């Protein structure tokens, strides 16, 4: 199998209006910056974006926001940490104006919703968030004397992930903490697209140490190793 595409543009050609797209990465580490930039240029409207947070260390995602392509964001740490930075931040401003809807989940719930979508499990119970605003509108149930709330799987139409090494069949290896959400998002995507820093021939990666087996990945593009800026949150 050869899942390699020649360009990021070709790899995202079928992203449609209203699509739900997950973006891997945690702050600066392991984010699919090249795919995101190509998406911003493509200018597809009414997107729901699923990601850790918007615009701190992954500034390229802001182009989607400022160009009005984002309808909704599903996050776990949506805003700049500092309230004063937030006031001047285009994403927070768009949320305050009601232009973008935001849904927030605790990190562990967020990642599990994605994994469950990829794993064919429609829902799960978690003790996280019981007795907080996260519980609102959700079923709460007691298991072994402890309350837990019902959370549903979060499937996505597309998952954009960033890997260190990849082969032609979509087997992926992430680098250090750049793995983060990429693994769960790769599972959750109906169409998962991986930008890889280094493309290998099939068979050149050790099959015992693959983080994302190729079955979860539909398309692969080699985008090179980026130079990341140092970011303060």
């Amino acid at each position, binding site marked *: 199998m050869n899942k390699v595409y020649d360009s990021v543009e070709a790899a995202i050609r079928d992203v449609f209006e209203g699509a739900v797209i997950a973006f891997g990465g945690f702050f600066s580490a392991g984010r699919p910056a090249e795919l995101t930039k190509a998406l911003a240029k493509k200018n597809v409207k009414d997107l729901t974006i699923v990601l850790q947070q918007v615009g701190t260390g992954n500034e390229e995602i802001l182009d989607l926001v400022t160009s009005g392509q984002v309808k909704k964001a599903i996050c776990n740490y949506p805003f700049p940490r500092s309230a004063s930075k937030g006031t001047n931040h285009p994403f927070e401003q768009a949320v305050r104006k009601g232009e973008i809807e935001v849904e927030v989940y605790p*990190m*562990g719930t967020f990642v599990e919703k994605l994994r469950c979508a990829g794993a064919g499990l429609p829902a799960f119970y978690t003790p996280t968030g019981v007795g*907080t605003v996260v519980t609102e509108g959700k079923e709460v149930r007691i298991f072994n004397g402890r309350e837990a709330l019902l959370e549903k799987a979060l499937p996505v139409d597309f998952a954009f992930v960033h890997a260190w090494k990849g082969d032609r069949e979509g087997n992926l290896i992430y680098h250090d903490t750049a793995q983060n959400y990429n693994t769960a998002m790769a599972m959750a995507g109906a169409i998962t697209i991986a930008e890889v820093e280094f493309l290998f021939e099939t068979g050149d990666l050790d099959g015992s140490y693959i983080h994302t087996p190729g079955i979860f990945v539909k398309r692969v593009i080699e985008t090179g190793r980026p130079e990341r800026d140092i970011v303060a949150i």
Partner: protein
Amino acid sequence: MSSTKKIIIPEMPPIEREMIALRIANMLEEGSYVNLGIGIPTLVSDWIEGRDIILQSEIGMLKCGPLAEEGGIEQDRINASCEFVMELPGSSYFDIGTSFAMIRGGHIDVAVLGALQVSAKGDLAGWNNPSRGLGNVGNIGGSMDLAAGAKKLIVAMDHVTVDGKAKILKECTYPLTAKVCVDIIVTNYALIEVTPRGLVLKEAIAGVTAEDVQNMTAAPLIIADDFQEMEF
């Protein structure tokens, strides 16, 4: 008692944030797995170098090392606060799903978190200051999972807000991170244990009395039989 209770700040100046961190570091047992939140909790790491304590970072790293100096920076190796960190012998990396399996699954012995408010029952409010005006959306991050999942939860915070309001209250008025989750509160004035009987004042810093601490606290404190001066 409410959060508007009149708070009296003692004349004795509080200890520095680093000393709160040191007090907490001294409570950690050898052989434990610990997760440190943003803010004062992060400073705990400065006091445990060389000790047999393993730090977990929710981004997906176990045995997270100290902050990386110029030259030791690897752009793909950051902690959950987006700071570059060092690798140690035995460090490992994994995805965030596995990371929160560790956290929620009770594999973390101690979590140290900051807080905006703590209630008499050990409720924690830390993720959302309503003054920011963003309603029910905000930066939850890993805090709710840590509060729900760690075997022991220590809160590290200033005893009162910058404008002199109580942070230890009968009931939290800010949105909760988790109910009945805090085990110990260490502030810049005192060490308080949360027990089924209520808040037990165990230690106060030198020159501060139990009454002084109660005067900064909007929940009733039980003075421990072994109440003593905080030592480092």
